[in-house]
């Protein structure tokens, strides 16, 4: 390869990589665990959702709502949870002004944000079908939601940096794009050696060789996976960057219209008539009928407009089950008063091009088309991404740690890596610790999870940095991870009585899975700890006694 190009690929890869390293690690780590979002939610709740069929009690829900609110003329959006075990409910104020008694308009309306400032008369909550209980968002916040949202840095939105767009999402988007850039430059950089070094692992060599192999070989093997996640990740979090100019050029600046033509949201606007509907509305029967009609599909959203008015309309949106049909989307809108079907598209046939592209985007990113085995493979590939990142940081440090380099620069490089590695490596013990705490504390909500996770992360991160010794940092995180991960199934057993053998007998495989996952992680970390202790070759690099060594994650992947 032309040495000039080679060095440019090298440099752009290094710079883009080291800028995003720590944040990308957080994204990969939290994202990998998010493949088991439903299992984590079931685990925390202590109630298995595996293999349950739910008859969503909509009538019951509406009935109990009507005891607190006058429902006439309201609109409802139901966003059903993926396993159909519950739903988010968004209830607006009534279109009937005799019910809603509108306050004088302030002129500011926030249509797109669901959790923004809102009318007291409206409500947004999560409803669980099995126990027929509603909880507001912060109360029903769990570790599954936390890790899921951490993987696109939603928590960063709340730090108070106001730039007109959610700060955390923007950071996540920029990181994802730079990740895509680093992937491309990395592949080009390694191009000549792809074939010869495809399976080149030299675990017995010098540590620097181990890191290089880990970075390049695992990077190339995982390349397709990571490319998919880089691209779909950018699209899912900041696609507006590319959509904005199209909205202003092709849709006269009307982005709602653009989103509608891309089939993201349907604008259902129905004029209120002030004439009550005759007869009752049996929502269970209505939804059940369409569910029967749409075999092999799952209803994902339900919209009710102008409840109990003559103009009342109900829309359903559904997605085909990926086993039956990879791409597609369906919707139906019915005028309840007349029973007339206003529009209908079956989820299982007539999928158009946009359905195809979007299904590809979502299924590839969520890994929901191959059941648990695929999720486990994606999880391991995700951890492999973590290994590539951490070894990348190590290569970056060691390559610059030369006697010829200025001491000032070497100090800076060391502290940068020290900081990055402390932030990255402390994630596993901190996650396990928070899993234990949610089982040990009486009251768990959003605030508790935030405080437990972020403060323990801060404390452990500072502690590891103060060590100023990478091998010791590694050993400490490994032993901490082993102990805390082992504590997760134990904490679950003590607090709920759901020991692993109990969940096995009960067939609560989602709860069992999380316990087993942490047990495996504990085992891997313990094994890695013994290896690192016996094999780590310490070598003095700076006058500060710091001795880089292998890092924890690879052992998980190497198994």
């Amino acid at each position, binding site marked *: 390869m032309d*040495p*000039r*190009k080679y*060095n*440019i*690929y*090298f*440099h*752009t890869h*290094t710079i883009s990589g080291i800028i995003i390293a720590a944040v990308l690690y957080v994204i990969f780590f939290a994202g990998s665990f998010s493949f088991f979002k439903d299992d984590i939610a079931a685990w925390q709740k202590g109630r298995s959702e595996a293999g349950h069929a739910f008859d969503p009690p909509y009538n019951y829900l509406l009935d109990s709502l009507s005891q607190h609110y006058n429902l006439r003329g309201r609109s409802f959006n139901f966003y059903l949870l993926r396993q159909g075990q519950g739903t988010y409910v968004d209830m607006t104020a009534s279109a009937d002004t005799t019910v809603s008694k509108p306050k004088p308009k302030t002129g500011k309306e926030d249509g797109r944000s669901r959790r923004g400032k809102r009318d007291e008369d409206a409500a947004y909550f999560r409803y669980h079908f099995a126990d027929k209980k509603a909880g507001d968002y912060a109360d029903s916040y769990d570790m599954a939601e936390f890790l899921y949202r951490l993987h696109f840095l939603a928590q960063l939105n709340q730090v108070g940096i106001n730039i007109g767009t959610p700060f955390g999402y923007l950071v996540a988007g920029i990181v994802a*794009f730079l990740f*895509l*850039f680093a992937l*491309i*430059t990395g592949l*080009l950089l390694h191009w000549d050696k792809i074939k010869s070094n495809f399976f080149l692992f030299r675990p017995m060599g010098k540590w620097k060789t181990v890191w290089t192999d880990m970075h390049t070989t695992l990077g190339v093997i995982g390349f397709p996976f990571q490319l998919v996640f880089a*691209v779909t990740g*950018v*699209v899912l979090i900041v*696609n507006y960057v*590319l*959509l904005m*100019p*199209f909205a202003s*050029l*092709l849709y006269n600046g009307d982005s709602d219209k*653009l989103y509608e*033509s*891309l089939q993201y949201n349907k604008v259902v606007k129905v004029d209120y008539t002030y004439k009550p509907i005759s007869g009752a509305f049996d929502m269970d029967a209505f939804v059940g009928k369409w569910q029967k009609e749409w075999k092999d599909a799952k209803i994902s959203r339900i919209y009710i407009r102008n409840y109990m008015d003559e103009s009342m309309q109900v829309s359903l949106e559904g997605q085909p089950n990926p086993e039956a049909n990879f791409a597609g989307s369906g919707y139906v809108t019915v005028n309840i008063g007349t029973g007339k079907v206003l529009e209908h598209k079956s989820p299982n046939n007539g999928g158009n*091009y*946009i359905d195809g*592209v*979007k299904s590809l*985007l979502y299924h590839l990113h969520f890994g929901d088309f191959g059941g648990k085995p695929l999720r486990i493979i994606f999880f391991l590939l995700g951890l492999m991404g973590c290994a590539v990142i951490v070894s990348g940081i190590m290569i970056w440090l060691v*390559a*610059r740690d030369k006697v010829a380099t200025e001491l000032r620069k070497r100090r800076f490089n060391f502290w940068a890596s020290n900081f990055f590695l402390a932030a990255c490596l402390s994630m596993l013990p901190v996650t396990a610790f928070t899993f234990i705490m949610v089982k040990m504390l009486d009251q768990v909500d959003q605030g508790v999870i935030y405080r437990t996770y972020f403060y323990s992360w801060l404390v452990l991160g500072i502690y590891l940095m103060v060590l100023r010794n990478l091998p010791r940092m590694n050993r400490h995180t490994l032993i901490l991870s082993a102990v805390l991960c082992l504590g997760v199934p134990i904490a679950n057993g003590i607090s709920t009585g759901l020991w692993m053998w109990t969940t096995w007998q009960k067939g609560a495989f989602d709860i069992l899975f999380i316990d087993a996952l942490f047990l495996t992680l504990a085992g891997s970390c313990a094994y890695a700890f013994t290896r690192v202790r016996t094999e780590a070759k310490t070598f003095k690099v700076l006058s500060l006694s710091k001795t880089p060594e292998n890092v924890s994650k690879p052992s998980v992947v190497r198994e």
Partner: protein
Amino acid sequence: MPANKKYLTKSPWLRLSKILCGSVGGYAVTVSLHLFFTAFLPKENVIMTAAFTGYILWAFLLLYAFVATNVWRVWGIYVLLTIVFALPYLLKINFNHGS
């Protein structure tokens, strides 16, 4: 070892120019290319496809600004391409009567 400095840009202004050229210029080319396709293909399909093609193209254009020997020429190419691709839109030519 880090990349050989001999082959890297030394002037910070030139480096800034490359970064801007690749990001801003690359973005303009990406958007205008997809805009070009909307002249004869259904626009919503083109925009949806841009989810995949757009970002990958943008990343490659960003890289090209660094790889090319003369960044000012890349500026020229990107500006020219943007104008050419935007022509059908500017002249309101649309062969896709379906949408």
